[in-house]
């Protein structure tokens, strides 16, 4: 089954007097359970593509389909509902709400979804244990390291078992050891829960974990490598 389908996506930004093609006729299919890295130099279009797939940014033309449903023509409210129920996000920074504890951050999405309190608590404790943060449930983000914060963000992204997790430079602010631990966690979650991961990065170490590597340049896909086969 196809988890993500992009058909002829185009997106142009205006920067000063120049038009920047962030997406230039991008076509892409990602199968369910895939573990894909989008790689590009800065300004190559990987974040724009990730945002378009996540319903955070609308393309100028083309179509985006998630789990068989076209999303580029949905309203803001419908997109919010889609993000809430079907997609988990891990951003590069500012991933957590500072006034909430680790557990409350993990529960946030479930709370908005309307999951009962007891179920939320059970799930959040279990997922925090799974990402190695047992005992840190009541800490606020300011009292946690960058790696721990990213783990909380990952826990929040996957706690309600979304079909798709989109991560934008998730290791950009982490040291190599913490980056490896985080990627190992992604791989484990991908394998155990069959969650589709799409990770935008320009970190070679992160790319090495992906089964499929898509290289982009100037808004176009220039390479699509099956790293398992390779």
């Amino acid at each position: 089954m196809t988890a993500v389908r992009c058909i002829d996506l185009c997106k142009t930004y205006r920067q000063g007097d120049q038009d920047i093609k962030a997406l230039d006729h991008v076509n892409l299919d990602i199968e369910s359970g895939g573990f894909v890295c989008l790689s590009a130099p800065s300004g190559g279009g990987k974040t724009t593509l990730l945002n378009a797939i996540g319903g955070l940014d609308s393309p100028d033309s083309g179509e985006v389909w998630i789990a068989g449903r076209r999303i580029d023509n949905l309203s803001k409210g419908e997109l919010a509902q889609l993000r809430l129920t079907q997609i988990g996000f891990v951003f590069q920074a500012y991933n957590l709400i500072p006034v909430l504890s680790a557990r409350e951050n993990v529960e946030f999405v479930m709370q908005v979804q309307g999951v009962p309190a007891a179920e939320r608590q059970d799930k959040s404790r279990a997922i925090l244990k799974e990402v190695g943060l047992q005992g840190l449930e009541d800490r606020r983000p300011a009292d946690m390291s960058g790696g721990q914060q990213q783990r909380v963000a990952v826990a929040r992204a996957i706690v309600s078992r979304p079909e798709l997790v989109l991560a934008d430079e998730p290791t950009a602010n982490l040291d190599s050891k913490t980056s490896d631990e985080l990627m190992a966690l992604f791989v484990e979650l991908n394998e155990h829960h069959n969650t589709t991961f799409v990770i935008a990065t320009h970190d070679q170490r992160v790319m090495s974990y992906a089964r499929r590597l898509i290289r982009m340049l100037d808004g176009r896909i220039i390479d699509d490598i099956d790293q398992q086969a390779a």
Partner: protein
Amino acid sequence: MRFFAIISMLAWRNLWRNHRRTIVMLSAITIGVWAMIFMTALMRGMVNDMVRDGIRALPGHVQVHHPQYRDDPSVLNLIPTADSELTKVFSQAGLDGWASRVKVPGIISSERESRGVTLIGVDPALEKSLDALGSNIAAGRNLEGVDDGGVVIGRRLADKLDTELGKRIVLMSQDPDNEIADRGYRIVGLYEANLERYEESFVFAGKSTLQKMLGIEDQVSEVAVMAGDYRDLEGLTERVALLAGGDVEVLPWQQLNRYLGSMLKVMDGFVLVWMIVIFLALSFGLVNTLVMAVFERVREIGLMLALGMRPASILGQILVESSLLLIIGLVLGNALAWASVVPLQDGIDISAVAKGMEMFGASSILYPELELKDIVTANIVVLVLGFLASLSPAWRASRYEPIEAITKV
């Protein structure tokens, strides 16, 4: 409901995220609310005092007169019904208090000075129920009956006449035949009033004594009736009109003293304007606080929107945050106002400016009065206008595009 729980929690925690700013804003709201309520209590106390003094000087909440009495308050315009008949009707009506009086213009003369005054013939027993002017005896005694042969004058009038307790004076007025009616009386009492001009204006004698001097037998100039609340007199006025019968004019005090009557209405308007002016000063701080709070949290707001929170929930969160700030400020402001007014129930001595105060009818002791409607108005003004002032920053926060907000530097 599930959104309310989470936005309330976020609003509460965000409120205390910047303690100093929140405490400064809370202090501003508290002092603003205190100023609204406390200053209104002072003004309300002053106006109510003026009204009560005015009613005591008239006195009566509702009065019955001959239709021409207000144009010419002489013996020619007395109530047609006999006083004995009026007494029979009004004493059986179950009123809080009432009294019939002779009230005519006259002249009082001592051996040295003469002054124009209002002569009031009273029944001291009936006047007690009205707490009327003249009952606060500073020296000597009060009148003891309708046939009492003495007079009670204001202490200030005694000074002006250069006379004193126990001395004789002459009262002079006009009888129904337009002849001079005069007689000598002894001063048996000196009374005190809040306002000096009242002490100088009114001279009290027994009702029968004055009737005899004027040759008007069993007739009176007015019937005064008191009720519980001096603001709501519509029912009482109609009832007194029925009791008094035809060919009389029955008017509430607001129409008898239009200055005082309009004072209450002006006061209500002034209180509202005063509260809104204070709030406008407050609102700049409130809006600034919320704008700053939103500006500092742009990326967080973007994150919440990206995770699937609806814009309406962001709007709600900022409004709840503002409402919490307002409610805490209101509770503290109300408590502070109450704590300020209660110890001042014995009055504030403003005798240093008594002359100026008396010019517009206020006494030299100010009694702050907390009225429920003023407290409710202050709270509603702050809540409603505060809520409206918060709408703009809250609306802006809810309109952010998630990805632009997250990447905002």
